């Protein structure tokens, strides 16, 4: 049981766990009872792929994996278990969890196969457990990624006062990357710059001196929540938002009327220092 959306997809797809998205209430019910209904992804038959996705887009960066998650999620029928094939470089864990986060926001997908990569998809027939895909294949190309971007990010330049990184929460290597890039730089005086992680990672960051560098630049490391969870009372005190997560971008666009920009770490840091998003 988990209350974090992408963890369901990640645990099912990468680690062979058997879990359902359920809901926060059900996590408490199961914690109290010590039991949970046996259905959905607990049942081997339901874990089979039923939707082939042909990826013909150039997917490599964290941002592109974010956009791929939305592009696929937007095109999935309810209840799909996708299987993706394509000529892309195999993603590292951080790109994958970012991808699963986006996928979990824009669909109800709970299980995902990447052919020759995830453990229940040693090849296409293994992923489908049959010889053929059951539904018409979906093709994702570069245009699909552009559409994902344009539907979640503003395109015109404007001033920004809110920059948030870390959805899913950053690991220590991502915090280190930000710290090294912010060394001897200053966050714009009007910008609230935040990195979100969990407390043990924050502690490691403190011990390694990364927190000090980020704070000296004018930024903050916060733990165990995120802007979308804090909600409208917090978000509506800002006007221009920059995030590196399509999940946050989508939530903030639903909650506020401000400009919302989605970018890479470098684009986000550039906006944080300048106090402005530039095309």
């Amino acid at each position, binding site marked *: 049981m*988990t*209350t*974090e*959306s992408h963890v*369901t997809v990640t645990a099912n797809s990468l680690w062979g766990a058997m879990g*359902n*998205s*359920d*809901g*926060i*209430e*059900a*996590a408490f019910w199961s914690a109290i009872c010590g039991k949970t209904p046996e*259905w*959905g*992804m607990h049942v081997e038959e339901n874990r089979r792929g039923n939707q082939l996705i042909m990826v013909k887009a150039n997917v490599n960066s964290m941002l592109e994996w974010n956009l791929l998650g939305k592009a696929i999620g*937007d095109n999935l*029928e*309810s*209840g799909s278990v996708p299987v993706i094939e394509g000529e892309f470089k195999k993603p590292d864990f951080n790109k994958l969890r970012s991808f699963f986060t986006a996928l*979990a*926001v*824009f*669909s*109800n997908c*709970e299980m995902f196969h990447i052919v020759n990569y995830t453990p229940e998809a040693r090849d296409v027939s293994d992923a489908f457990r049959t010889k053929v895909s059951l539904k018409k294949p979906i093709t994702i190309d570069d245009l699909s990624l552009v559409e994902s971007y344009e*539907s979640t990010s503003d395109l015109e330049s404007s001033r920004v006062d809110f920059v948030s990184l870390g959805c899913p929460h950053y690991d220590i290597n991502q915090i280190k990357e930000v710290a090294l890039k912010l060394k001897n730089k200053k966050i714009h005086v009007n910008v609230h710059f935040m990195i979100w992680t969990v407390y043990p990672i924050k502690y490691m960051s403190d011990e390694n001196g990364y927190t000090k560098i980020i704070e000296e630049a004018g930024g903050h490391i916060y733990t165990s929540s995120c802007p*979308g969870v804090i909600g409208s009372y917090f978000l509506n005190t800002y006007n221009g938002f920059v995030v590196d997560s399509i*999940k946050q971008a*989508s*939530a*903030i*666009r*639903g*909650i506020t009327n401000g400009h919302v920009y989605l970018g890479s770490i470098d684009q986000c840091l550039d906006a944080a220092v300048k106090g402005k998003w530039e095309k």
Partner: protein
Amino acid sequence: MEKTIIKGRVALSGIAEGRAIVCPKSITGWGGIDPFTGIIMEKGNVNEGKSIKDTILVMPGSKGSNGWSCYFGAARVAGSAPKGWLFSRIDSSAGVAIAIMNIPTIVDFEKDQAPCMLIQNGDWVKINGEKCEVEIFKDCKENIHTNKHRDCHVRKNS
């Protein structure tokens, strides 16, 4: 009056009727609805700006956050819940949300009876959980924004 009847599986029994609001791409949890008013806030949703309050809400399944049920549960607490719910196919988040909402709900329709395909916004829909049946009346022209659906009523099984 044109009437269509479709059959599914009862997830939560009871009888409810009201105007349909049909979300073929579901509604995302986070930032998807304003629980206080029931208004759909999700950018790009075909029903953005409309309220789910007192409607028969029709969707293929859940979408998004593991907290999906919480947002609908908050709407229930705030008095902005739909009268009834139809899902083409139940999934785990939908199942929890149904339990939280405690409104008559029918799920798992045959593919050629998918409610998102057969029902349109504004149709008058009656859910009969005792017969696993949904009656769709196509000639209702009232706009769901006008609050003329106040005459909706729900009789729940005790």
